[in-house]
């Protein structure tokens, strides 16, 4: 077929000369190259002891944020669950009772908030959908585990630590 553009180049393969057909010089060349690599700097990062730095737009484990007074930001609107393409997020909403104003910022909060880490594809759409800036994917790598049920992360693993120093 006639090419539409003229970008295609047909490589011309010359017949090999005697030294190329002998194949041995090519092998020695290759062996010299690999030998040089023995003395190059090793690229290995010794993982558990040292960790490679994450880039700025790294998306790792989710965390549910608190505001400046240590109250949970999430209002259980469900937009994150709606936006999630992998349907990894589920939640049950509850109404804030009297005396819980210090715990939750809005009148409605998430009583149960679960993310299935086996389903999650770490796309970051929940982060973008959230109107309250409550969820961010700024954590480390999700660790491995033995059972499927252990990959469903509840609020105990997701919610940020309360700001204890400021409360005191």
């Amino acid at each position, binding site marked *: 077929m006639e090419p539409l553009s003229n970008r295609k180049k047909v490589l011309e393969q010359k017949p090999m000369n005697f030294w190329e057909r002998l194949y041995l010089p090519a092998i020695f060349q290759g*062996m010299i190259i690999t030998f040089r690599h023995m003395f190059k700097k090793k690229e290995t990062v010794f993982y558990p002891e040292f960790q490679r730095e994450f880039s700025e737009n790294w998306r790792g484990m989710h965390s549910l944020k608190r505001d400046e007074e240590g109250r949970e930001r999430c209002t259980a609107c469900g937009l994150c669950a709606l936006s999630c393409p992998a349907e990894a997020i589920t939640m049950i909403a509850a109404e804030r009772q009297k005396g819980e104003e210090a715990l939750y910022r809005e009148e409605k909060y998430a009583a149960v908030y679960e993310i299935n880490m086996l389903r999650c594809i770490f796309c970051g759409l929940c982060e973008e959908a959230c109107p309250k800036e409550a969820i961010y994917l700024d954590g480390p790598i999700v660790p491995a585990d033995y059972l499927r049920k252990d990959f469903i992360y509840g609020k105990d693993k997701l919610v940020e630590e309360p700001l204890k120093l400021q409360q005191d």
Partner: protein
Amino acid sequence: MELAFIIEKFALILVIFVISLTIAAYSTLAERKIAGFLQDRVGPNRAGPGGMFQPLADGLKMFFKEEIIPTESSTALFILGPSLALFTSFLGSAVIPWGQDVEIAGRMVSLQITDINVGMLYIFGVVSLGVYGIMIGGWASNNKFSLMGAVRAASQNISYEIPMGLSIIALLMSTNTLSMKEIAEQQHGINWNIFYQPLGFLIFLVCSFAETNRTPFDLPECETELVGGYHTEYSGFKMGAYMFAEYLNMFLASAVMSTLYFGGYNYPGMDWVNEMAGSVIGPFIGMGVLILKIFAFIFLFMWVRWTVPRFRYDQLMNLGWKILIPLAIANIVITGIVITIFEKL
């Protein structure tokens, strides 16, 4: 047969057995380390300091893995295969001269298990026997891929035995003996055979790569085409036996090449060293030199493995039959002409 003779031979066999086992075990570590270094990595380094105990960990793992024997295979042959492979790879080191004679308590003790006058042919025979382990194992697995691997191993080994034998004939013409001990003695100092038989050595080297089934000729276990080749169905320690046999064969091939072409236990200035060190320590220094040469060859085997890609099967056969055999015959003719000219002069 006196008792001392039996004891000394038994001790020597034990020592060489242990040495070859250790070298084979640590070859597995060296292979992974060298692969790492050549690819800008560090290789295994967790078990012990610098990965020292990795072979032990691997061996333990092999012992504790489940052994699976396919129900449709013939069990006896399935077990015989790896045993035979391991057995034949041990046999060859019997005729390697490991050093000059040592004088212990007024007795000359030879550092060679046995000096039969057809030593070189013996090694050749043992090597040609090695393919049975692979063939029997591959056939007994009752698996198409294993059978393909076995068939490839058989035809490859037979094809490369011919140029190997022919290159040895050229060496025989210049040494005039088949005994490994005499060949080693003739290469005193730096009078190594590599200077008389460079082409023969090259052919022998290529053939020994093919005979030990190492890359670029590892078609019997070519994982991109044949899953695992002849050991597809093997698991646990039988798999380990096959792997061990490969490394032992590599050790043996390195020992044979060092002895035949690179002077064995000889090194320049050995007379002076022997005078200084005495007749007990001196030969053992020679043995150390031989082992260093063997290490160099093992490194070469691994270096080539991580550099050169695998050959295609027809390329392998072309190389063996159309290039190496004519080259080896030409080498014989040239050697004959040169020897005749030198005799006439």
